[in-house]
């Protein structure tokens, strides 16, 4: 459950991070449209909101919120490191994006 929580938070922050113009440019080789950024951020928020009940399920009502804040911070850090330190050759191919 804790592992699932971690993955969920990493994906959420992944959406937040990739919505950023510079990181989107680096990893998708095109700048995001404002709607795309907005959409990605909205997905990030939904995933983050969903991770809260997962943390409650993992550790209960007292320790769950503590675990949640810890995981949120940790996953933000992991995504920060990945986006800024993975070589620029690591990219995502996104067939859904309009040219």
């Amino acid at each position, binding site marked *: 459950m*804790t592992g699932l929580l971690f993955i969920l938070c990493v994906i959420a922050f992944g959406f*937040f*991070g990739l919505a*950023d113009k*510079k*990181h989107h440019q680096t990893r998708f080789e095109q700048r995001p449209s404002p709607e795309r950024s907005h959409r990605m951020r909205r997905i990030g928020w939904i995933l983050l909101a969903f991770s809260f009940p997962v943390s409650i399920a993992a550790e209960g009502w*007292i*320790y769950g919120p*503590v*675990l949640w*804040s*810890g*995981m*949120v*911070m*940790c996953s*933000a*850090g992991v*995504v*920060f490191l990945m*986006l*800024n330190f993975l070589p620029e050759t690591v990219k995502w191919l996104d067939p859904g994006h309009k040219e």
Partner: protein
Amino acid sequence: MAKSFRQSQTFLHTWSGLLLGWLLFLVFITGTIAFYREGVNRWMHPEMARVEQPYQLLDKTQHYLEKHAPDAMSWFITMPNRNDAGSFTFWTPQPDSPDATGYWLDNSARIGSNTDPAHLRPSRGGEFFYRFHFDLHYMPVIWARWLVGLAAMMMLVAICSGVVAHKKIFKDFFTFRRHKGQRTWLDGHNATAVLALPFHLMITYTGLVTLMAMLMPWAIVANYENTRAIQNELFPSADGVEPTGKRMDMVPLSTLVHDAEEKLGMKAGTLMISNPGDEMARVTIRISGAEQLDSRTPSIVYNAVTGREIWRSPPPGGAAVTTGAMIGLHAARFSGETLRFLYFLAGVAGTIMVGSGLIMWTVKRREKLPDPTRPHFGFHLVERLNVATIAGFSLGIAAMFWANRLLPADLANRADTEINWLFISWGISALLALALRPKWSWTVLFGLTGAALFTLPFYNILADMNGLPSTIAAGDWVLAGIDISLLVFGMAAIAIALRIARYRPPERRRRALRNKGKTPVPETLAPEPAE
């Protein structure tokens, strides 16, 4: 031009951070290590086997105390558990006893299942780091707590002003501009600060809560005649009894612990025995702080001769639980392996945040110096203090770990000597920081720290002191984790040392070559921290 609010907050952030930053660095680094204080206790007592039979070990401790301190006024025992290095005990001798030195550690022992306390290498272990982060060292604890309390208040100011000053806090959440000098330092400082911001706010505020009665006593003074009055209300206890002088045997303490654990449904943490061996002997069993978020745990008092329960702590009020929970959040005793590691990572981030902030002060101002080879005194002071504290204290910690391994077990005052080696190394580092140019003192000190940390796990293997192969094979992840951390931090320190040694400020050299013979081009003004 009138300063904007943001600019004034920037000024406040810079100075509240800088003036107490060196002390805050010490508090952060030792506090972060203290999250694993039991683990470091075990690491620094390598001859002690992991506790497998806590109740048997408790009885062994009782026998030891009955033999070595039968006439003491009181005994204090920490309940042995799997994570800690055996059972730690200390006792208060009678005032007229020759053992009454006034220093509590003189009358203490660490009891292990496979060790004889007389032959155990005395060491403060992880307890040193825990105590240091609010009691410091070599000074009366009240002075230390005032200093640390002041530093923590400035930290809170620095956090809040930092958030206000950070104009694009959401936009720049994932920003890290590499190879851009001052901007890179800013992005690094911002990342460690913002990504772990909830932790930094929590740990600083709750840290102040632990010292609140000292820092802001006026509500207490206004409402209570003396400290005893509020102590009795906040922390009710059974009435003390005078010993009658009639010696009587006590029941085995493990039976009382079983009873208490059954009644309260939680594991015991500590035992306090008053008037041991007397007719009026009492045992106060307190539940372990690891069992709940509220650090102020319930307790039961027993008659030690009959084994009957005499008194039980009443349920605490709302305000007391709130305080206890805040202190619990700060100390993280409740945390299991995952949460404790998250706390540790956040602490590392905080340490880097403070260190990078201190360094950034010099990086920013170096660009504005009229003559970089002859900076003003303030710049010198900050630059040298940075080296001495950040690199020097780290080397001191590495030296203390080595002292734990190398000092002979029967050395007099061994525990204190181990700690003295931290400060001796720190002192030598400070002298180096004064004598050498900063580029070289950074390199040498970080290089030495890295080498010292990295080689320790290998020494553990050679000297058969819970080396990595045996701890991993035994599934002893706390000890293995400490050795792995030594390797990781050692490599990081060496990498930093190499980076600094190889660093050439490119722009300045190219520009100097370009401008030979021409009037100097002014450097572009450094932007405000939030931009």
